[in-house]
């Protein structure tokens, strides 16, 4: 067996599988920093994937498709925001309901539009090699020869890290998630911040769904997101709510998936389930190992009530 080829193929699978998880994960980080759980991530991703497929298939333009997918995810997030922020319902229940609903809803819509044709597909987008950098042995083809969405992802991660840690609006966002009462007292509109954070999270989850369509599958299948939204939640915990580390965390989850497929293909007798399990176990351990899990926003998952003391 050619080990260098093996390692490169696992690494590139790690990045490829990690990209949608990272988009979702960064979204979850942003919403959770504002104190809103985004369990509906899965639903946003599904809707994003579905709309991306429909729009790309009808218009023939993947760019429009991806944008539409992001907006679709954002709209789903609006529903979650309305119920959990304005109507003050339990955030986890709202998320779970939408996840269950969206599996049925998207496959229903698909059938309503296209009947039972399951072979409809669009062309997946090509990867773009960065000159010179992509020629570096081993890592070149892994990190510098990916689709355009990968480069956008890197920009999104850097931008959200910068905004959250270096800009006033980021400080305000964190204040909303840590102590909304104090934030309110400083004149920050808590409700608006939470809406905006959840909308951005929804948009990114929608893009994550788009990526599945335009870069991996090329077609829509029932429940195409297959739990990646929940992996996004795991990522946000594993990276301790840091968007840059979210990239690393996503690639760890992606690597587990990539390695699993390769090991099975090569018929190596390591139980692949243990491999898939490891990142989740790592997440739990990391939450305890680094300073009593103190990085989670303090007001995460709570309903904000202006009047309550």
């Amino acid at each position: 067996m050619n080990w260098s080829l093996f390692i490169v193929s696992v690494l590139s699978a790690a990045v490829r599988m990690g990209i949608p998880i990272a988009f979702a994960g960064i979204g979850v980080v942003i919403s959770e920093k504002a104190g809103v759980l985004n369990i509906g991530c899965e639903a946003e991703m599904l809707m994003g994937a579905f709309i991306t497929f429909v729009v790309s298939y009808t218009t023939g333009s993947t760019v429009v498709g991806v944008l539409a997918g992001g907006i679709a995810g954002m709209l789903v997030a609006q529903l979650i925001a309305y119920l959990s922020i304005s109507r003050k319902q339990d955030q986890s229940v709202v998320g779970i309901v939408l996840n269950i609903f969206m599996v049925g809803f998207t496959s229903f819509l698909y059938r309503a539009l296209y009947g039972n044709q399951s072979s409809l597909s669009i062309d997946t987008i090509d990867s773009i090699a960065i000159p010179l950098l992509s020629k570096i042995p081993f890592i070149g083809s892994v990190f510098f020869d990916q689709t355009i969405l990968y480069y956008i992802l890197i920009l999104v991660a850097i931008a959200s890290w910068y905004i959250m840690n270096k800009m006033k609006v980021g400080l305000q966002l964190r204040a909303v998630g840590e102590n909304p009462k104090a934030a309110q007292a400083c004149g920050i509109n808590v409700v608006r911040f939470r809406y905006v954070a959840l909308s951005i999270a929804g948009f990114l989850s929608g893009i994550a769904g788009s990526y599945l369509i335009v870069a991996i599958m090329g077609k829509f299948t029932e429940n195409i997101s297959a739990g990646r939204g929940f992996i996004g939640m795991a990522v946000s915990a594993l990276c301790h709510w840091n968007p840059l580390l979210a990239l690393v965390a996503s690639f760890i989850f992606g690597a587990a998936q990539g390695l699993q497929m390769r090991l099975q293909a090569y018929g190596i007798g390591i139980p692949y389930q243990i491999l898939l399990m490891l990142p989740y176990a790592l997440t739990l351990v990391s939450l305890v190992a680094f300073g009593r899990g103190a990085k989670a926003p303090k007001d995460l998952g709570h309903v904000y009530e202006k009047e309550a003391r």
Partner: protein
Amino acid sequence: MKRENTKNGSEFWQKGLIILLSVLGALLVGAVFLLIQKKSPVEVYQQLLFSPVKTVGNLGQVIKDATPLIIIGVGVSIATKCGLSNLGGDSQFYMGALGYVLVSITIGDKLGGFSLIVGILVAMVFGALTAAIAGIFRACFKVSEIITTLMLNYIVQYFISYLVNGPLKSEGSTIAQTAEVPACMKIPRMFQGTTASWAILIAIVCAVFYWVLISKTKFGYNIKTVGGGIRAARYSGINPMKYYMMVMALSGVFGGLAGAIEVSSQKYRLLEGLSNDFGFNAVLVSLLGMLHPVGVVIAAIFFAWLSTGANVMQITCGVPVTFIAIIKGILILFILFGMSIKLGKFRLPVKHKKEAALAGAGKEMK
């Protein structure tokens, strides 16, 4: 409980009315969806809503499907009463099933009927330990139990997948499953030719236990106090962190029990996909049942009714089973919306910290 209902009589009926309207609303929206698909709503709903009572087999199916939902739903409700979200029903369910199968392998039929009881007890312990991890994380490390229970779902499911594909795989079996449990560890079916088993009685016992626990015991009262807010609980001399751990474990007991029951009364083996998304559905059941024991039973039966009817509907009308995911989703969304509009204050306990604690204290004084 009854006295409470008469006291808050109007609120009780309002809730009932909202649920009824939401059911009708969800069916109406569903009808629109069916019309878009060019199916006759009347025909489909006839199959969906009435086929469960048409044959004994279908009725048995309803009872079979409702059993795990009631048991896990009760567990979820207890956690919710304490202000915790137990989204890890599936992990506790699988660990319970594993515990039961391990007993069947090690003890087998040596103890006769006692094997069954030992199996169920071990399953309950396994479920409790699984959920206790989330409780300990919450109490000792301040890690949200929502995140831990979600992670545990995946960890356990991959672990089970490994076991049934590897060490525990039944010899000579082509598919990934454990060996069948011995006959003495099987809970008998109610009637010949149906899938309903006497395990439904265990589910009913769970619901009664929940009712007694919450409305008749000091422990249950303390659970509600902690759910009302940890500050209020501390003032009344309760250690909320201790309760978080205990209640989470107690909640897991039910998940584990449900796993043992599913193995002992239905599949007789442990295999992947043993849980039909029971964990998340139980969360919806406990919400739909308004955390009330009777409500949880009715809600679980309603969900089981829908899934039974959906199977018939898929065969006779060609509408895919996923249609009920739409109905369920819209129903719960309507209920969430309706409750927030109509009552303004229906929230899961932890959210209205102050009022709940005060209201609870008021009740006790009377």
